[in-house]
């Protein structure tokens, strides 16, 4: 690829004496290429009000004119879980680690749905906001972060559904052993990990889709397939030994397993794989933010 011609140094007649003040007195300096790690994350903090406005908008806009409103958040996972119960447990007779299938699938789909929604929604950031991005500046990262946060509301409702079902089964005397302290301590960590991973994957895809629109098809399709590569509808313990190490390379595997471990007392919870998952998440997020920052600077020129 040839290099662009460099701008000539001879400038058109400079008008007036141009000031050569030092940089400190300026509020804003716009320069072409910043380093890979110049991410201007402090800008994000300045625009935190916008972040909350976006979260609110996403939530209100999504359910304002539906008959059932936020109830959809309940109906969706309930129907999915029922389907899973019938097909995977009833027909295919997959193991649920000795748990009631309904509970088992709820504990898997609630976190998985959150992750999947984060990825699919953030992956279209640039394409769906092209019009707005082309007109006004704000840190573009505000948009995907707001999506990750507004999706939390969906997760919270599904989470409540899980807790409700869990309590109902406990009251019925099912032999389930949830770790209540584990739930209190681990939940925030696991949520942050899923949000970060979903955000990271989503913004990488969103940056790439500015160039390749067809990648977005791959995402919707890929995320469906990825569910089967993650122990959502089956426990990790039922996976044959020789495939298991491959499964554990999937950063979502330890997260889902940890969920089941603290909520339902079954599953392979171990700090080692969770640390691997956290490391993977951080790396993905960092790469994502860097790519996203590169793309946001020139995105308007290419769309």
């Amino acid at each position: 690829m040839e290099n662009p011609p460099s701008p000539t140094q001879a400038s058109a007649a400079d008008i007036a004496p141009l000031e050569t003040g030092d940089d400190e007195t300026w509020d804003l300096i716009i320069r072409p290429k910043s380093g890979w790690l110049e991410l201007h994350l402090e800008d994000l903090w300045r625009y935190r009000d916008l972040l909350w406005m976006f979260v609110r908008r996403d939530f209100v806009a999504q359910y304002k004119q539906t008959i059932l409103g936020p109830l959809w958040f309940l109906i969706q996972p309930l129907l999915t879980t029922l389907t899973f119960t019938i097909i995977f447990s009833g027909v295919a007779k997959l193991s649920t680690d000795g748990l009631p299938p309904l509970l088992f699938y709820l504990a898997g789909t609630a976190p998985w749905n959150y992750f999947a929604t984060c990825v699919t929604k953030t992956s279209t950031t640039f394409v769906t906001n092209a019009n707005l991005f082309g007109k006004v500046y704000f840190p573009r990262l505000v948009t995907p972060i707001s999506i990750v946060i507004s999706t939390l509301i969906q997760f919270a409702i599904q989470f409540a559904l899980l807790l409700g079902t869990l309590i109902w089964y406990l009251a019925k005397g099912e032999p389930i052993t949830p770790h209540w302290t584990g739930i209190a301590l681990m939940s925030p960590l696991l949520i942050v990990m899923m949000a970060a991973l979903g955000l990271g994957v989503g913004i990488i895809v969103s940056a790439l889709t500015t160039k390749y629109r067809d990648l977005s098809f791959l995402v919707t399709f890929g995320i469906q397939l990825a569910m089967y590569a993650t122990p959502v509808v089956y426990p990790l313990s039922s996976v044959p030994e020789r495939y298991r190490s491959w499964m554990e390379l999937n950063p979502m595997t330890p997260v889902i397993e940890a969920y089941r471990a603290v909520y339902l007392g079954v599953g392979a919870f171990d700090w080692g794989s969770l640390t691997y998952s956290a490391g993977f998440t951080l790396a993905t997020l960092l790469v994502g933010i860097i790519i996203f920052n590169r793309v946001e600077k020139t995105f308007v020129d290419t769309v």
Partner: protein
Amino acid sequence: MPSDTVISVRNLSKLYRLGEVSTGVLAHDLNRWWHRFRGKEDPYTRLGAVNDRTAKASSDYVWALRDTSFDVRRGEVLGVIGKNGAGKSTLLKLLSRVTSPTGGEIKVRGRIAALLEVGTGFHPELTGRENIFLNGAILGMRKPEIVRRLDEIVEFSGCERYVDTPVKRYSSGMYVRLAFAVAAHLDPDILIVDEVLAVGDAEFQQRCIGKMKDVAATSGRTVIFVSHNLSAVQSLCNSVIRMQEGTLVSATRDVQTEINLYLSNAQRGNSHFPKRLSAEITLDALKVSPGQVASRSRAEITVSLETSVATRMTDACILIYDAKGTRVAILDGRETGLAPMRLAAGRTDLVFDIATANLVPGTYNLGLYFHSGLTNVNLTDLMEMTVLETSALGVPTYPAEHRGFALLDFKTRWQTPDSAPPTASA
């Protein structure tokens, strides 16, 4: 030493790639790599790559803006003029940080904000109040700031009763008023207005210009205004920069000087003269003098013809069209005895002397209807003629867009049933 300079632009350049570097579809790119890998020709560049060898390296890229340097001082109302593609909009995009430069730098003191197209970022499902907050936040306002000005914004918009109704139920007029109210209360130190953004909404455009006047009148505010509407630039701006092919070409900041230079360039640029009307007759030039016609003053349009043989001209009319293509006037040479006339071989100048150009300020297109024994042509869009405001009236006039087509010469007097009408005009 607090400096007066609020924007400093140094060697600013922006390079655009012409055409798609990527095909936009992953499969195509993979296919291209595969072809290249096997040493074959790229399957997607054959189309249209005609002058491959001669111009490829230089034609893949274009400098939308090149080595532009200037300063803007506090309180300056700076007009940016230039033809389409001169780099005006690119400059604004760089200033408002929508895209980043290829070279050079911009330094800014204070908050910079742009007046956007009506309702950018509005969400139809949200209420008026929610949209005020959303829109304000998008434009860079902090929440306490919006809360403080909320009542003012609501009152200004005149939508008090509907402030808790989703904006999708608003009439388009209310929508515009609300959107504008937010923008009007933004109070940036530097306001950027791109006229192009406001096209199609006359009311919004008017308000933008009104707001600009307000902002400019408040001391310490700076406005950058990009427009094709020279009369607007003339009446609003106290300095002007002129751009051409991506660089700054103005040597001064003087409004009148730069507008004159722009017009003389525009005239030269627009001409495809000499223009052949027939085998025997050529239209050598069409000229308007003065280069910028002042409204309600004298103007001369000269048609220069070159004929190889003598011919009898039966019609010669100048046609004047407004920017939208509506014919505004016709100067029929037959009415003044110009036609019919025998044209001798050689050069003939037909001069149309307009005593008072009763035209509303704006840009007009000139056409020519010419009929002789040898040719019969009806040419439109030969040249642009710009009519500027005269300040001789001494009263503020309505904006050009609201003044219709014609300026009529009129007098007024007053009378009551009891008094005999005064004879003198008021």
